[in-house]
């Protein structure tokens, strides 16, 4: 639909309309169906233009941070650009955490911010903030529109920048007089960015060298991440195809989960700080590492000088600055993951490449021995619900519905990553780079807007959920039947775990003394509230939650002292992983590790 409109537009002469109308028209021509926002003085003309039409829907959030997270959830579950509209000053500053989150996780978002009229800029006017100044380091790019003649082009350019190359958030700051002014409209077809042309296909010579390395490997490992998801669902299919063609093991980052099916025997589970034993040891012992769309983040590498010491590394990334940033690689390949995978598959077939069968068999034997350690095992017995058990049951009771899962930040997030299996991309939304508590509930709202008939669950901690709890009101207003699954351990569990490990068990301020009654709180917001306190109640509550056609808050009381394992403590290497409580005492964290986060 958007395409047709665009094509028709290109032929017509420039129409004249007000700035606010240009904004709405540009959004529609970009195929935007819904935006997330909150009104205020500096955006009233846009809200007025919104009022006069029906094609573009608006979700009224309760805090601007949540508007951005909702747009992120929408974007990550659809592959489209998420759109935000907020007012000047406090509206814009409230959006900053969301924008930073989107930047760190490479999520395409366009955020429109109101601004005081151009003649007042710089005067400390009411609700003035230097929005482009504040958001410069937390956006991929930003604009301040000071001339109505630039408005339409800037709108289209912002969408192009947000979704192209390594995606990210783009802010357009819109002074109020520009929203009232009259000017020309041009459609997206007429707008071409002057310079920004990310490289999609890889240099063919590098593809040949990559195949040489991949085919000669004796202990290979695929290490893939969010870049594959961002490249579109086809990239995940291609990755799965290539991994199966080679028969090599594959591990995924927190951002990459779903890029190959969790049920595939070639999948080793997530890697990194709370990754599986087999994934981290395979990384440590590999002789060839094929990194596609991951960025050697510190949660992945552990101590850099001990990271996968003997592997020859290939790194595919659309962002040249990701290559050789933390870890020097032998073969850096700039390009889009999907396009490069297509090139690799083509070259592999054309050259009739074959893995070293004998070596691979030995490698897999080793990996299966590691896998047999069953590093995620836990012991559920008696009445007390283990948090892992709660998430495992949630997975088992919902997997036939291919649910969309969002999370907050903490232990529950890591357990969700460990125990929830994703067969497809775009079903897992979590704040990886920034680790933003309060992400999951608004993200779930964005996901549910995009997928009204699907099951959307936010796996939450009782501390995180309070950071954007007001959004329950948004869910009720817009009849979004999201499910909030609180793994309630009464502690900021992840903080408590670090204090146990690193600070002699001095639990400074990590216990929330006065938690609300989440069932009553759900009720007060007009949601369904459910609770399970004993293992025997768990399944019934989960089933009831699935059945409800309204927003639900589920309060699962779990073991308060459980820690998240395996764990590679800060400053340790992959082969120095703690597998359980018994390892804690044996392997104290190094002094260098203490200062790391």
């Amino acid at each position, binding site marked *: 639909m958007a395409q047709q409109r665009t094509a028709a537009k290109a032929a017509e002469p420039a129409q004249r309309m007000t700035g606010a109308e240009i904004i709405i028209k540009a959004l529609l021509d970009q195929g935007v169906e819904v935006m997330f926002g909150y009104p205020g003085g500096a955006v009233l003309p846009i809200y007025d233009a919104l009022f006069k039409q029906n094609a573009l829907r608006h979700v009224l959030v309760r805090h601007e941070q949540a508007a951005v997270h909702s747009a992120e959830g929408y974007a990550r579950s659809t592959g489209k650009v998420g759109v935000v509209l907020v007012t000047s000053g406090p509206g814009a500053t409230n959006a900053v955490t969301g924008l930073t989150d989107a930047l760190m996780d490479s999520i395409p978002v366009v955020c429109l911010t109101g601004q005081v009229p151009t003649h007042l800029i710089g005067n400390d006017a009411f609700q003035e903030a230097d929005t*482009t*100044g504040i958001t*410069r*380091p937390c956006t*991929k*790019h*930003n604009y*301040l529109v000071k001339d109505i003649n630039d408005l339409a082009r800037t709108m289209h350019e912002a969408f192009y*920048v947000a979704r192209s*190359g*390594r995606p990210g958030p783009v802010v357009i700051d819109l002074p109020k007089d520009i929203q009232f002014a009259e000017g020309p409209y041009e459609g997206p077809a007429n707008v071409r*960015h*002057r*310079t*920004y042309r990310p490289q999609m296909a890889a240099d063919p010579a590098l593809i040949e060298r990559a195949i040489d390395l991949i085919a000669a490997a004796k202990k290979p490992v695929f290490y893939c991440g969010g870049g594959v998801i961002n490249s579109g669902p086809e990239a995940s299919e291609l990755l799965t195809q290539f991994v199966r063609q080679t028969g090599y093991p594959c591990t995924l980052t927190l951002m990459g989960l779903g890029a190959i099916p969790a049920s595939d025997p070639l999948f080793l589970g997530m890697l990194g700080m709370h990754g599986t034993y087999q994934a981290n040891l395979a990384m440590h012992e590999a002789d060839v590492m094929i990194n596609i769309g991951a960025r050697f983040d510190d949660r992945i590498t552990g101590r850099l000088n001990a990271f996968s010491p003997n592997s020859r590394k290939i790194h595919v990334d659309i*962002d*040249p*600055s990701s*290559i*050789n*940033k933390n870890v*020097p*690689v*032998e073969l*850096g390949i700039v390009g889009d993951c999907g396009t490069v995978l297509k090139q690799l598959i083509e070259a592999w077939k054309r050259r009739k490449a074959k893995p070293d069968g004998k070596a691979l068999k030995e490698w897999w034997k080793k990996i299966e021995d590691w896998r047999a350690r069953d590093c995620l095992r836990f012991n559920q017995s008696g009445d007390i619900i283990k948090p892992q058990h709660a998430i495992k049951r949630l997975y088992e009771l919902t997997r036939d519905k291919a649910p969309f899962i969002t999370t907050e930040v903490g232990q529950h997030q890591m357990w969700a990553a460990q125990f929830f299996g994703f067969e497809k991309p775009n079903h897992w939304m979590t704040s990886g780079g920034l680790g933003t508590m309060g992400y999951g509930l608004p993200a779930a709202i964005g996901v549910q807007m995009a997928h009204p008939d699907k099951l959307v669950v936010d796996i939450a901690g009782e501390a995180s959920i309070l950071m954007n709890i007001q959004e329950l009101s948004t869910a009720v207003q817009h009849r979004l039947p999201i499910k909030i699954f609180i793994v309630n351990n009464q502690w900021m569990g992840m903080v408590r775990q670090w204090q146990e490990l690193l600070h002699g068990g001095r639990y400074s301020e990590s216990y929330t003394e006065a938690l609300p009654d989440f069932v009553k709180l759900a009720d007060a917001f007009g949601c369904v509230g459910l609770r399970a306190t004993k293992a025997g109640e768990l399944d019934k509550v989960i089933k009831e939650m699935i059945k409800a056609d309204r927003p639900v808050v589920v309060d699962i009381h779990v073991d308060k002292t459980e820690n998240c394992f395996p764990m590679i403590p800060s400053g340790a290497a992959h082969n120095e992983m703690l597998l359980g409580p018994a390892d804690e005492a044996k392997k104290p964290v190094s002094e260098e590790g203490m200062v790391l986060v």
Partner: protein
Amino acid sequence: MTIDKTIRRHTIAVIVDNEPGILARVVGMFSGRGYNIESLTVAEVDAHQHLSRITVVTSGTEMIIEQIKNQLGRLVPVHKVADLTSEGPHVERELLLVKVAGVGDHRVECLRIADIFRARVVDSTTESFVFEVTGASEKLSAFISLMEPLGLIEVSRTGVVAIARGSAAIMKRGAGN
């Protein structure tokens, strides 16, 4: 990629859209990521296309310099990044203005040294001179230290501008399209 830990000085030329905030974007990238700037100059160099050229002198290991170039390259309004230091021979120049105040023998000595450095007198009063010197940064620094005991009271330098030797350009100049 080799892991060479030697810290080297690099002169990098960056062609950017001359738009509001571009300098803040470039400088903010350097400070935000902890890279150092030894010198930075900027001016519009193509009036038709509204392009500016930023010359930045920085230092770091090979890996850091690569990062700096890539980080500059991913800024949306950046057209071209050229590492003049590693791309071959280039010329670097800086312009210096110094004010020297004094009377008597010092004035004579000042003019003698200025002559050796091919400095020009661009302003003079009975008790002061302003000298203009162009050249490599080290030459300018040498001139300053020689003037110091002779009554130097103020210094203003432009920072380095640089261009590669030979017939090639780092970017084609447009004819104002």
